[in-house]
């Protein structure tokens, strides 16, 4: 078989596809046998789509990038996939080995370029490498912490001959629980005065929501969602759910003031911005995770969901936490009606879209999105990196497996990868996009007001874009919402992509301590 045939055959064997990409001359040789290809009009968008799809399915997805410029254009997205722990297999072309010595156009050391954004990187030396390196990369992508991997293929390798060997492959086993550690944690709970539980993104990623709920029911402690988690940490309609932990150390310490034991299942302590307070001083902190960061406290390596399942069997109840009923959402929504505040908009959204997958890049409204729409299993996704422009590609990727996807995005964020709307339209992806248009970078204004007052008035933080025209030009039906927000019904209708722009309150929210 020729190299390019081996490439296609291996992807098929690994059940990897479609290939998301944006091609160049370097990749034309390797794409000759690829039938299932999704074109994105900026390289990075293909990584974002693959990231969304991989997170949603829990299995690897595949991308093909155009050597130096394509990989370089996608670097922020590859880093986001790393932080999202998203198993994306990234491939790219490389210049013909026979003249690489001359540094031809487009040539570069791609392995250095991808650097630490990926957990495995390799450049095929010959045709035999194609099958084995792709299989190794795919398996590696699923090893905890899951994440992107990279393989590049010189053009001449695609012309070489080799046999397809049908090498065995198997995705890594993650069902790891150390029973001694389960007993240890049970004892810590018993000895603690007031434990609190944090449930992190690994719980949703490994389908362990049921285990988390059963454990919480039995132990009776409050369950918080990991700070800035990239996906649902817990089921927010559960009475043990106590809300999100904010990433600021001061806020974290205030919230967990009374708790002497913090058990973190499958999450980590993401912090921003810098505040003087130390992280959780004087408390016992134990993290149970398949991918320990060893950043703070004690760590136990293991499957957090299965760990909870075992722990549930032996743990003694330690309280009966009931989340107090929150009566504020309804009245906040009603109050904000006249200002088109986000709580009003999101309560309306909740009525129509309560069973949709939410892809959140609402930035200054993200806390409100989480609060108003809540978490369910595989129902909430956001970029862990803080990078903008991720949501539209990711929502598009997820919509290939689930037609009920609502992306909620700021007008600023939409513009980073707005041409993803073209891919959505071209491939009839049923994404519903709600743009919260506050004419600028509201979160940066909020940050300025708190830490560098005056800058919020800078002209570079406010701007207008004609989103309706732009979006329609890419072929997606688009409307603007009026005060009634009746257009939300229109947005939900049918399995076709639609964009609704809502002009929301432009006053600066207080978001920082």
């Amino acid at each position, binding site marked *: 078989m020729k190299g390019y045939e081996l490439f296609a055959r291996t992807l098929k064997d690994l059940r990897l596809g479609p290939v998301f990409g944006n091609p160049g001359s370097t990749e034309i040789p390797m794409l000759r046998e690829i039938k299932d290809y999704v074109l994105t009009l900026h390289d990075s968008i293909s990584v974002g789509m693959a990231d969304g799809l991989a997170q949603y399915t829990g299995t690897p997805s595949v991308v093909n990038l155009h050597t130096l410029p394509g990989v370089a254009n996608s670097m922020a997205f590859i880093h986001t996939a790393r932080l999202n722990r998203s198993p994306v297999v990234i491939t790219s072309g490389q210049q013909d080995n026979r003249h690489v010595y001359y540094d031809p156009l487009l040539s570069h050391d791609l392995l250095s370029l991808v650097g630490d954004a990926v957990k495995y990187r390799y450049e095929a030396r010959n045709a035999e490498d194609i099958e084995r390196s792709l299989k190794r990369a795919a398996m590696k992508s699923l090893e905890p912490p899951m994440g992107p991997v990279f393989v590049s293929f010189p053009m001449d390798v695609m012309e070489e001959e080799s046999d397809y060997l049908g090498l065995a492959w198997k995705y890594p086993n993650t069902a790891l629980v150390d029973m001694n550690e389960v007993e240890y944690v049970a004892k810590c709970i018993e000895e603690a005065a007031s434990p609190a539980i944090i449930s992190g993104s690994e719980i949703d990623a490994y389908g362990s929501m049921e285990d988390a709920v059963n454990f919480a029911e039995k132990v009776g402690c409050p369950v918080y969602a990991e700070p800035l988690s990239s996906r649902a940490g817990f089921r927010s309609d559960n009475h043990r759910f106590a809300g999100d932990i904010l990433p600021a*150390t*001061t806020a974290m*310490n*205030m919230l967990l*003031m009374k708790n002497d034991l913090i058990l973190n299942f499958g999450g980590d302590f993401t912090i921003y911005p*810098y*505040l*003087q*307070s*130390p992280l959780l*001083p*004087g408390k016992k902190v134990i993290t149970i995770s398949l991918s320990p960061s060893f950043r703070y406290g004690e760590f136990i390596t293991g499957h957090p969901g299965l760990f909870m399942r075992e722990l549930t069997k032996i743990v003694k109840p330690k309280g009966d936490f009931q989340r107090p009923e929150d009566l504020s959402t309804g009245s906040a929504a009603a109050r904000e009606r006249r*200002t088109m505040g986000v709580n009003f908009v999101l309560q309306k959204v909740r009525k129509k879209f309560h069973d949709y997958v939410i892809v959140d890049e609402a930035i200054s409204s993200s806390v409100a999105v989480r609060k108003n729409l809540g978490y369910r299993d595989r129902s909430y996704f956001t970029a862990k990196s803080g990078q903008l422009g991720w949501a539209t590609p990711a929502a598009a990727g997820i919509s290939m497996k689930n037609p009920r996807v609502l992306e909620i995005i700021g007008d600023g964020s939409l513009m980073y990868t707005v041409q993803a709307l073209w891919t959505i339209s071209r491939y009839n992806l049923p994404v519903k996009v709600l743009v919260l248009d506050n004419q600028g970078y509201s979160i940066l204004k909020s940050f300025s007001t*708190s*830490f*560098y*007052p005056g800058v919020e008035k800078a002209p570079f933080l406010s701007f207008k874009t004609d989103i309706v025209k732009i979006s329609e030009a890419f072929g997606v039906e688009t409307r603007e919402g009026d005060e009634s927000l009746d257009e939300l019904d229109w947005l939900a209708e049918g399995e076709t992509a639609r964009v609704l722009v809502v002009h929301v309150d432009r006053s600066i929210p207080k978001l920082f*301590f």
Partner: protein
Amino acid sequence: MKVLIILPPFLPVDDIRKIIRQILPDGEILTSTDFTEHNAEVLVATTFTRIDRNLISRLPGLKMIQISSTGYDNVDQDAVKSRKIMLCNIPAANKESVAEHVIAMALAHLKNLIHFHNEILKGNWPVLTNSMDLAGKTFGIIGMGAIGRKLAERLLYFGTNTIYYDPVRLQEEDEEFLGLKFYALEELLAKSDIISLHVPLTPETRNFIAGKQFNIMKDGSIFINTSRGEVVDEASMIKAIQSKGIRAGIDVYTQEPPDFSSDLFRLDNVIFSPHIAGVTVESQQRFITETVSNVMKYVQGLQPLYRVL
């Protein structure tokens, strides 16, 4: 960086100490100023502690003072200036509370609450009333700063016709948003059923509302002052209350505590409170949060907010 926090002993100091240990480990809490010398760089205090030349001299390393309230009359500003110390306050964490207090006073008058309360305590059962609704009344706000705005926002839901005066007129879209109409001061006084004063005390606003202004007001209108006592000429106010049936809601006095032998306290259509409109459990919580966050900014090397010196 050493942060010294001086608190009045009636606060739950042990609880506050626990909190401070979690969020500002370099903070030290004292309940008195009887130390001989302290190496603090930052001093946090309430208005209950006099910060005079003597105290400052015992803080040789002091660079910043944070007062955890709007007022900072307890600080000897000359002493602070001569040492080039930075002074910050926490303005307007109480604006919602003041706005609510004003509405409470207006409603108490309109609904005759004090009268009914007293009658019932006397064993009477009054059946006649001239109680009124707040809805439909013309509410005049003098001074459209942070508190004036909060008041205007809340009044929207009470169905008043709200008008305002301020030396600096709002942008048209802000007026529209708050449903406000601008009038010159005299016109506002003449039109309003209820008047609430929200101006700072400056040389220009001393006795800002005096005989002439009271004369313009409607007979029987309600006049509420939660700003500063000196902004109103107290003698003229007493006269207006007696002669024009003006009903007053008074939270602030030219002298505090006031001279209780004053005629003011012989009037029966006045509701008093002890300069406390801005003090609620919630506003105190907001003051604490804002104080901690501002001190942390300074300690981290950022410019703190609300610098007054």
